[in-house]
């Protein structure tokens, strides 16, 4: 079916499938990952995906506070997704918005399937995701970095988690939207997956997709997750082969 395009003057996708930033349809933005850059937390990671820049710190497992939050049989995972006031074109109020509260929840639920929470009863594992610069795809980049920080913290996990947003421009499904594409595109579908056990842990959609496009979007997200997972592996391996850090048997 024909979709209305409200992108104004210039098209977001050229007839030969090139996007406004020069990328191809299934091309991810440039990604940079770094592990363990903060020293006063259990684990940390930094990610740049295009102009999106996010830093994540993990604390714990530590005794859950306030006490009534503690669960007898497992750890609780707490997340905070927050955008710095300087991360957007117009200053963002530092108070958590409804959007941030919702994203905090879906990110937590995207990480929970991977973290072995029953290993640490009555404790909390806290993941703080701070968006330093927002240029679309912040929840997905935040999840990718959070998984890295959890791994660095040594918290047992069933799998890594990586995430990417796929979208729709001029009727075509595309990988990893940037801000302009997110604002003016026809759909935005962030997907988080555990790459080895092949399961979706976050799935949201704003926009309009047919069933075929939904299926194509999921497969494209799967390919994006695979690329990000390879980079996560690389980042972790580099960390532990470069700095001959202490090895401790378990």
């Amino acid at each position, binding site marked *: 079916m024909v979709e209305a395009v409200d992108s104004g003057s210039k098209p977001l996708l050229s007839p030969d499938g090139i996007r406004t930033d020069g990328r191809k349809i299934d091309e991810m933005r440039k990604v940079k990952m770094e592990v363990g850059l903060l020293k006063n937390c259990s684990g940390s990671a930094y990610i740049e995906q295009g102009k999106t820049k996010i830093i994540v710190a993990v604390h714990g497992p530590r005794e859950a506070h306030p006490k009534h939050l503690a669960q007898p049989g497992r750890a609780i995972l707490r997340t905070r997704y927050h955008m710095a006031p300087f991360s957007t074109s117009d200053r963002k109020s530092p108070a958590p918005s409804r959007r941030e509260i919702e994203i905090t929840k879906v990110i937590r639920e995207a990480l929970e399937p991977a973290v072995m929470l029953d290993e640490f009863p009555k*404790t909390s594992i806290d993941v703080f995701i701070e968006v330093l610069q927002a240029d679309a795809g912040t929840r997905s980049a935040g999840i990718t970095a959070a998984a890295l920080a959890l791994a660095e913290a*040594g918290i047992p996990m069933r799998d890594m988690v990586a995430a990417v947003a796929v979208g729709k421009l001029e009727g075509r499904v595309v990988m990893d939207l940037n801000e302009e594409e997110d604002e003016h595109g026809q759909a935005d579908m962030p997907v988080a997956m555990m790459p080895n056990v092949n399961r979706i842990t976050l799935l949201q959609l704003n926009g309009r997709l047919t069933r075929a496009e939904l299926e194509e979007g999921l497969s494209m997200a799967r390919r994006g997750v695979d690329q990000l997972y390879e980079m996560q592996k690389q980042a972790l391996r580099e960390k532990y082969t470069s700095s001959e850090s202490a090895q401790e048997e378990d």
Partner: protein
Amino acid sequence: MSDAIVVPGEEVGVAEQYVPEGLVYELNGILRSSGVGRVLKDDVKHIIKIQRQGKKLQVPSKGERVYAVITDAKPKMVTADIVGKPAKSYGSPFVGLIPVSMISSQRIDAADNYFVPSDIILAEVVNERSPFILSTKADECGVVFGRCRSCGDVLESTGRGLVCRNCGLRDERKLSSNYLIRSSQEAPQSERRDVKRQDHRHGDYRKKYRRQ
């Protein structure tokens, strides 16, 4: 041991071949890593585990000696905040419990006679998970620093007990053999050491006896 570092989720073997141990778990017959580290395979015992790379979790583990601060003492149960290991303090404390039966190798009626809130103790962790159970039965375990119940000043060890350096009150604790503040009027070293050695043997004997 292979050189490649595996990350969580990576397949490291199959359940038919190995028994998973540290940082390896099974899902649908496949063995996967749950940590970042190197794979260790024992093909004789058919055991597979991951040798963790990097930071160790800052969580008390079974068999470890930890420092704790007593937060509450009741006749049957003492609670304490576990603050760290001798070389490393935890970012935030973990809750520890000392049941009256774990305080000493000798029989004790009321735990609150031997521990007082604010005492700093060295103790051994006897279980894997929170709430952590602590034992102070070993000689080195017990109070390493305590304050007077009555005036709050520092208690000094005389070798035969504790005396408040301010008000002179005599007090009792399950003492560590490494109590920090020693009185200048302490009993001669040789004598004290003798007493200790005797205690130690006594304790050992009792432990063995109970196991039979």
